[in-house]
């Protein structure tokens, strides 16, 4: 079955969300991945939103992480401190982030382009809850297009922490131990993080994607897994569910 990049990324991301785990998501692709996971393999996946929505029966894609869809027939309509403190207590397994730039340690910039904080070339929204989730959840994932501007050696502003400048840096900074970036899912490949160096390591390349294409679209040197594989494409069942139940109006999958 044919599929587009967005469909592929959402399906790959959804497979990491195992049953009976807790994920905090935003709007867009991460929310679609969580909904797909719930419907395909992880019916008891607990979805939370940072503004306070807990365990909704999502009737459709929320347009804001605080809109009423995020607690529609939910288990609890709580508050932002409730969700953020649940993250800080170590109860949240996964989260998804996005950003304008990312470096080899998985640090993310969603604040600004330029080198003067007072007069940025381009200003983005900033952290929102991203820094909090990247600091406090166990495993952080990204769903993002891959190009050399986005995957860059030095990002202009570290909004949200990855592994900062390498092994041990998160702990030294005071961030909870054993937390950090987990997977980066792009339109070209799935990237994990090397245990020793905490640098990005490609784990699987998407069907039809050459290694060189991935290198050309990355602004820093990537590591490659010894057991590099081909990403498992979406199954017909996943695609059917994604297109008919999760995102029937193609709000997300229509963007590719």
């Amino acid at each position, binding site marked *: 079955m044919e599929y587009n990049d967005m469909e592929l990324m959402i399906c790959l991301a959804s497979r990491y969300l195992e049953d009976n785990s807790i994920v905090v998501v935003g709007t867009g692709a991460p929310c679609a991945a969580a909904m797909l996971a719930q419907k395909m393999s992880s019916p008891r996946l607990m979805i939370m939103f940072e503004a*306070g929505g807990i365990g909704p029966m999502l009737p459709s894609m929320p347009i*804001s*992480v605080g809109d*009423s869809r995020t607690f529609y027939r939910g288990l609890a309509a709580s508050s932002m401190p409730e969700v*953020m403190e649940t993250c800080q207590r170590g109860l949240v397994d996964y989260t998804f982030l996005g950003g304008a730039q990312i470096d080899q340690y998985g640090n993310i910039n969603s604040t600004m382009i330029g080198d003067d904080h007072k007069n940025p070339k381009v200003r983005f929204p900033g952290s929102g*809850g991203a*820094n909090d989730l990247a600091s406090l959840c166990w495993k952080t994932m990204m769903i993002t297009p891959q190009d050399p501007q986005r995957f860059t050696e030095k990002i202009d502003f570290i909004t949200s922490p990855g592994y900062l400048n390498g092994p041990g840096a998160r702990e030294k900074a*005071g961030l909870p131990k054993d937390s950090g970036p987990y997977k980066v899912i792009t339109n070209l490949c799935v990237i994990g993080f090397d245990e020793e160096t905490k640098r990005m390591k490609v784990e699987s390349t998407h069907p039809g994607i050459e290694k060189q294409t991935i290198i050309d679209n990355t602004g820093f040197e990537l590591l490659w897994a010894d057991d590099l594989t081909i990403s498992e494409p979406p199954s017909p069942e996943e695609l059917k569910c994604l297109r008919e139940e999760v995102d029937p109006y193609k709000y997300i999958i229509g963007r590719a």
Partner: protein
Amino acid sequence: MENFNKYTEARTVTYKPAGTGKLYTDPDAEKAREYFRDTKPRKMVEKATTVEKAVKEMIHDEDYIGIGGFGANRTPVAVLHEILRQGKKNLGLAGHTATHDFQILVAGNCVNRCDAAYIVGLEARGLSKGARKAVESGAVELCEHTNASLTWRYKAAAMGLSFLPVRCMLGTDTEKYSNSVEMECPFTGAKYLAVPALYPDVGIIHVHRADVYGNCQIDGIMIADQDLARAAKRLIITTERFVPNEYIRRDPAKTVIPYYLVDAVIEVPFGGYPGNMAYEYFSDEEHLKAWLKAEKDPDEFKAFLQRHIYGVKNFNEYLDTIGGMSRLQELRIQENLIEK
């Protein structure tokens, strides 16, 4: 049984300024206590007023304000429009997922400083050109924060403290451009970030129902409003509807903001429009899109603001400009997921 008294042995604790950002509000808990002692109403008296009067009497140039809700969800839009009409200037703002609220305030050049967790964007809807320009030009000075850190700054104030230790922001540029201080836990020695309590001069919150004394109930998520209401020196409430005090007493577990926190309360039906009000009406995506589009052309935007804010007397007249009750009823139907 394990003895944990090792944690209470004498030790030296270090503190290190971590951010270069300015402190826009006084975190001093003693001063806050005195303020609350001297000005907060103990007596349950009627506080019903008008938006015009509340803004005139309670919001002054250079005040620092905190806005309830979440950007375009349960946002006190009527008060924000009135702030523009009265031409308030040099306000400080807690930019805690500030989306449409930030967009409105910068459209009126009302803000000159902001504790910024999330600004210039409208989440999935895109970025606001007007808000970006205000920040990129330096017209609005920023101190970086995160949603959790601002929430916890409100919470510190709500607890009557001057700071809270937290575990976010550490190690990042967000921390570097914030106004926080790195500290060691006096018990465990763990490294934490101390964020200063945030006591805004004015808090503005839109709720589902309130009585004329200011006892308020909110349906759905609270976001950070339970703490903002307690942290604010002055608190303005707009409510979808007034209910008798007897109604509040029927379900007291739902009363999240008791009267003694409240200084003014105003009934503003559809007061969260064009945002989403849980169980009442969905956000007006077309109107929010129109805002984003109008911002792209200065002349068009001027006319847009004239049509919807400056050229109308009050919020009811604004609602007339967007299609009145017919449009609002469509949004009520959308919110309640009623199939056509």
